[in-house]
């Protein structure tokens, strides 16, 4: 193999890796939001309980840079819902969907989420 051809192939491989890395980052960020918002079999997160849908709909994903994303909500009662604790003690789940601890389950399952998304990319 000539040096020129080697360089071309190396550049092509690097571009492919860069593209896959960027795609993985976007996909993982989206999967994290989905895990917190709607639950995930990969992380075991139950997703947000739903009464009016206000909290579930409030979660949003923002890309601060090519390598940083923030998944957040500005709903005041999001922390008590996460912990399952309300103003008068432990909350009773009345929603047919979702549950408590979605954020911490997503956090605990983050590595699995990355592996899952990487596997999906690698299959293409």
């Amino acid at each position, binding site marked *: 193999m000539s040096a020129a051809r080697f360089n071309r192939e190396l550049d092509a491989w690097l571009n492919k890796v860069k593209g896959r890395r960027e795609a993985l980052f976007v996909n993982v960020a989206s999967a994290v939001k989905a895990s917190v918002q709607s639950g995930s079999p990969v992380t*075991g997160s139950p997703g947000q309980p739903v009464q009016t849908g206000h909290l579930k709909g409030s979660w949003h994903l923002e890309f601060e840079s090519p390598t940083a994303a923030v998944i957040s909500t500005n709903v005041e009662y999001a922390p008590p819902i996460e*912990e399952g604790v309300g103003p008068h003690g432990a909350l009773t789940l009345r929603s047919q969907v979702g549950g408590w*601890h979605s954020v*911490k389950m997503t956090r*605990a*399952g983050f590595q699995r989420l990355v592996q899952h998304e990487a596997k999906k990319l690698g299959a293409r």
Partner: protein
Amino acid sequence: MIDHFGMHLAMRARALTLSVVTTGSTSLSATSTGYERASGSFLTDGFAPGMEVTGTSFSNAANNAAKTITAVTATALTCPGCVTETAGTRTLSVGLPSTRVWENLVPATAPTVTDPYVLEQYLPGPAARVTVGSDGQLEVEPLYVLSIYGVANTDVAALRQYVDALLLHFAPDTVLTLSNGDLVRVRGNPAPFAGQLLRREDAPGWVVASVNIPFRCRTAPN
């Protein structure tokens, strides 16, 4: 096989051996308002208002019973329920609160707003086959959540020390052995982490902080 029951009980058993603060064996006396010592310091040992303290080796059972500290100085703990007893070699210690709300079980003693208590939740988490073949090992990642309900308006020392002690007690790589021989290990990434303090509104009320302990267990499928 996956043994969530065994894992849950093993985690609970580990929590029961928590030690937050202790005087060690030392000369202690009791008065009608609490405990006293002639040497050493309760402050240096880490005792704080809002902690539940129990005695060991007092002659009077009331002085060994669990009670909540309301004030601390270097030489005195103020807590209700003590009876006068002259100095002797004893121990005062703080561990897991004596009122424990285990999952799906009404506690023997109902929580009261003047005393801390603990509530547990076991989240089984996802499972996956991680080695090849129909006999491939299963890996499960449960999460054990202990919520310490601290007495409101007692500052942060008590709750923070309960939380810190639990994080240390369930440090990464802590291994619990199940009766079937499986090993359940505290994960290091993520490592155990604490939640923020959340206040309950019913006066005087509690403030709750949770400790979230991620585990991992690999087991045969059957």
